[in-house]
């Protein structure tokens, strides 16, 4: 099992830092989460809510037809939920545009290698595991 290159790079970035700097990196990522495109901006009910996140997070997954079926990810989380936004940004940076097979091949526990448990707490990390599970489920449904 290997991670898509962008996700592998992020994991390496986190692993190279101490706990406090990992939080800073997560904060920077939270600021980089792209805005929703217009077709989702006013249509939260067409997105899937990730209930396991401690703050409201909505997710949409698009799998393109043809080729290697690249996956595109869209997230919505409020500014007062920077941790949730940071997790979403990890998924976006690491997985957006990747082939469906590569997304499905990401190990479910890849996030343990980010080393965030100490800085963020294991409980808060449930959100990122749930995000990946829901992304994979939608990719499977679209390609199956």
């Amino acid at each position, binding site marked *: 099992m290997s991670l898509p290159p962008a996700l592998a790079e992020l994991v390496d970035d986190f692993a190279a830092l101490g706990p406090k700097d990992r*939080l*800073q990196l*997560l*904060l920077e990522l*939270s600021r980089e989460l792209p805005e929703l495109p217009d077709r989702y901006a006013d249509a939260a009910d067409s997105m899937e809510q990730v*209930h*396991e996140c*401690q*703050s409201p997070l909505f997710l949409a997954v698009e799998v393109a037809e043809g080729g290697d079926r690249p996956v595109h990810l869209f997230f919505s989380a409020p*500014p*007062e*939920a*920077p*941790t*949730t936004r*940071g997790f979403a940004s990890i998924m976006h940076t690491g997985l957006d545009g990747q082939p469906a097979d590569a997304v499905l091949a990401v190990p479910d526990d890849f996030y343990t290698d980010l080393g965030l448990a*100490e*800085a*963020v*707490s294991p*409980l*808060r990390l*449930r959100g990122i595991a*749930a995000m990946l*599970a*829901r992304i994979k*489920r939608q990719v499977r449904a679209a390609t199956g």
Partner: protein
Amino acid sequence: MAVTNDPDPKLAEYAHPERLVTTSWLADHLEDPGLVVVESDEDVLLYDTGHIPGAVKVDWHTELNDPVTRDYVDGTRFAEIMSERGIGRDTTIVVYGDRNNWWAAYALWVFSLFGHADVRLLDGGRSKWVAEGREMVTDTPTPARADYPVVERDDAGIRAFKEDVLDHLGLVSSGGGALVDVRSLPEYTGEKLHMPDYPQEGAVRGGHIPGAASVPWARAAAEDGSFKSRAELAAIYEQEQGLAPSDDVVAYCRIGERSSHTWFVLTYLLGFDRVRNYDGSWTEWGNAVRVPIAQGEERG
């Protein structure tokens, strides 16, 4: 020098008005010597995106919990947390946070386990401060280190363990004691579903502790996140639910955070004599062997 109390008339109606301050009072007293503002949030990064000027951060999960045992930190660690934030034993602490002060109330409760005398909540918390357009800054203060004494935690007064709750059940059924379940109604009834692939937070049984009244914690909050008036709170907890200030009350939720909020309401706003927070809550009770459980909307 003692920090004054907020004379706001809404606060004056509560049993212990000295336990709350309003946003306008805090804005005027940020420079008071002897006062330290503490932010404690659910979201571990929120403080870093902007906070009340001079406020320091205490994270409930990574700092107030023991990293190994499921328990709170000990007196030595607590003294270190306080000292490095410039908080002494005589300091007036004002705590605020996100989510209607849910985690701020939890921090305040933990501070109270160590007997810190003057710790207050900011009524309305972070969201009210932000909504009013008050100043927020991102620079992190560097407080002069204080010398907080090592005080042993005293769990006896305001904390209940599973054994205490089992002992309490008889008192509840005889009407001299009460249990308050502050989770959402589907959690209380035990109907909350577990979807495949998406485990909820590992309790193997759903439902509530027999005899518990269902009062979701957020019912104590007004639209703007501040506490409802004393009369509105009394209407919920006393008239509607039949609790009396002389009752021996135990509050619980899932891991003890939401119930800290209700503990604060019953103790300081309504003046109940004896309220304990059962922090083991449903993640302990719903997994414990041979403890009684009730399901459905009836108290049981």
